[in-house]
């Protein structure tokens, strides 16, 4: 098996087709690209042609949003076969998926839905990751979710859950710093403590994205992981904590809704480059 991530410890962005020409003309700080696997499972046409061309110039990270690794049943074999086909021809630098479920009884719900953290769900998620890694012939990264609620029957902290799954399967982890901030705010947890407890030696990639602000029934803040705006300042501050613990890592800016013009996204990548450079200086000092 290949290693979990061969991405450079540098900024990347989630690729959007509307940025194709501007990105190729001036990538700025961007050194790699992430694509959503499901958008490149057609048989041909422009999406595949663009991806082939981009892959000649940039390392590509394939990020799945539809494998339903946290589902009650094993990953859909047809979908896994499509994923294998994509990874086989593209040979990406990394493949990652979410600690979440999205498919139930043949229906795909197009959202990342939560699961309780118990020994039983550790075993189930680990079995599914074993199967994915076996079929793909590569290690994968598993991403921490954004949480809006908790389960009464959870018996483990999320960091312990992720560590247990990684230990059992050998998979790497993708630490989404915005998700940590969103979940900690929504559930009244300590984001810095989450970062301290996170198994940084497993991390193959970091994510940053924007969130929206709302409130729950009791007036408590409820942050929504919308990927529709710039990364919030406290999330950049939390990133510094993460980099302080784990050192520089491949760092992705996600912007999936209300997608801005290329210079705006490139500026976010520039800010990510500064954060990585500062962390490298601190580590060397």
């Amino acid at each position, binding site marked *: 098996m290949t290693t979990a991530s061969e991405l450079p410890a540098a900024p990347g962005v989630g690729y959007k087709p509307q940025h194709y020409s501007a990105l190729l003309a001036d990538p700025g700080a961007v050194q790699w690209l992430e694509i959503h696997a499901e958008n490149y499972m057609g048989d041909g046409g422009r999406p595949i042609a663009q991806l082939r061309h981009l892959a000649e110039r940039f390392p590509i990270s394939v990020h799945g949003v539809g494998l339903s690794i946290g589902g009650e049943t094993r990953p859909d074999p047809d979908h896994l076969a499509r994923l294998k086909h994509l990874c086989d021809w593209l040979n990406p630098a990394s493949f990652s998926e979410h600690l979440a479920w999205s498919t139930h009884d043949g229906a795909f719900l197009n959202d990342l839905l939560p699961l309780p953290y118990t020994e039983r769900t550790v075993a189930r998620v680990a079995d599914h990751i074993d199967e994915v890694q076996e079929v793909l012939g590569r290690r994968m990264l598993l991403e921490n979710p954004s949480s809006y*609620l908790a389960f009464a029957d959870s018996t483990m902290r999320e960091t312990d859950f992720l560590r247990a799954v990684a230990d059992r399967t050998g998979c790497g982890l993708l630490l989404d710093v915005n998700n940590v901030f969103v979940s900690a705010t929504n559930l009244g947890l300590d984001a810095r403590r989450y970062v301290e407890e996170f198994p940084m030696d497993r991390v193959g990639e970091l994510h940053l994205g924007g969130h929206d602000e709302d409130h729950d029934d009791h007036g408590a803040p409820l942050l929504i992981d919308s990927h529709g705006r710039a990364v919030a300042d406290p999330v950049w501050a939390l990133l510094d904590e993460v980099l302080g613990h784990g050192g520089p890592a491949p760092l992705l800016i996600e912007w999936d809704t209300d997608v801005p013009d290329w210079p705006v996204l490139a500026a976010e990548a520039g800010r990510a480059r500064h954060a990585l450079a500062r962390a490298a200086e601190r580590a060397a000092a």
Partner: protein
Amino acid sequence: MSGTDQGLFRAAVMNPAAAVPSSLRDGSGRPAGRRFAVYRNNVAVSLTEALAEDFPACRALLGDETFRAMAGAYLRQHPPASPLMARYGAELGAFMDAAPQLSRMRWIGDLARFEFALRDSYHAADATPLGAETLAAIPPESLPERRFGLAPSVRVLRSDWPVLSIWRRATEAGAPQAQPVPEDVLIARPAYDPEPHLLGPGDAAFVDALGAGAPLGEAAEAALAVAGAHDATAILTLLIQTRSLTEPEPRP
């Protein structure tokens, strides 16, 4: 978590009137309440947005409010069958055909099938079209026996309604009013962008016959059987110009 808990979660996500599953809490152990609405909203809005983006002409002609109400009903009855959102909406045409509130817009189902076919063509496999020199080298006397293939991006639609004219009227400024005549349409993809072409009488039968592996002579007869009179030159020229003809599939 019992084996059916995700089933309960799904049912509650898809039905805003359903009770929030009791095992869901906020960070202090209180019932999750409207926190659950984040998931309801994500599912309904993301699927509605996907349909709105993929069926722009239907949305323009129904009006945004009516289209979104239709999408909301559709996504609950027909959630995506796979994570490939590019394939979502295949049954929207049939769904709208059967919707009583749309009975005055009986063409809307064909328009949805047309928009779906455009998208389907966009994602279809690439093909190597037959070059002009290959075609020119075919001796005229052997043409009736010659078989061709069609590029995987080619689609033929038959409509009892002026579906192409309705689509143009909805998507192109200054397009003329649709006349009440049936229209057959060829969707071809010369490079990466699917383009629709109005077909003449018998042309759809001709293209379908070629696609089914019939030699040119048989395809011409199939067109004649439908249209009474048919000149294959125009449709053949269109297929060549749009890079729609390929070498035929090897025959067993």
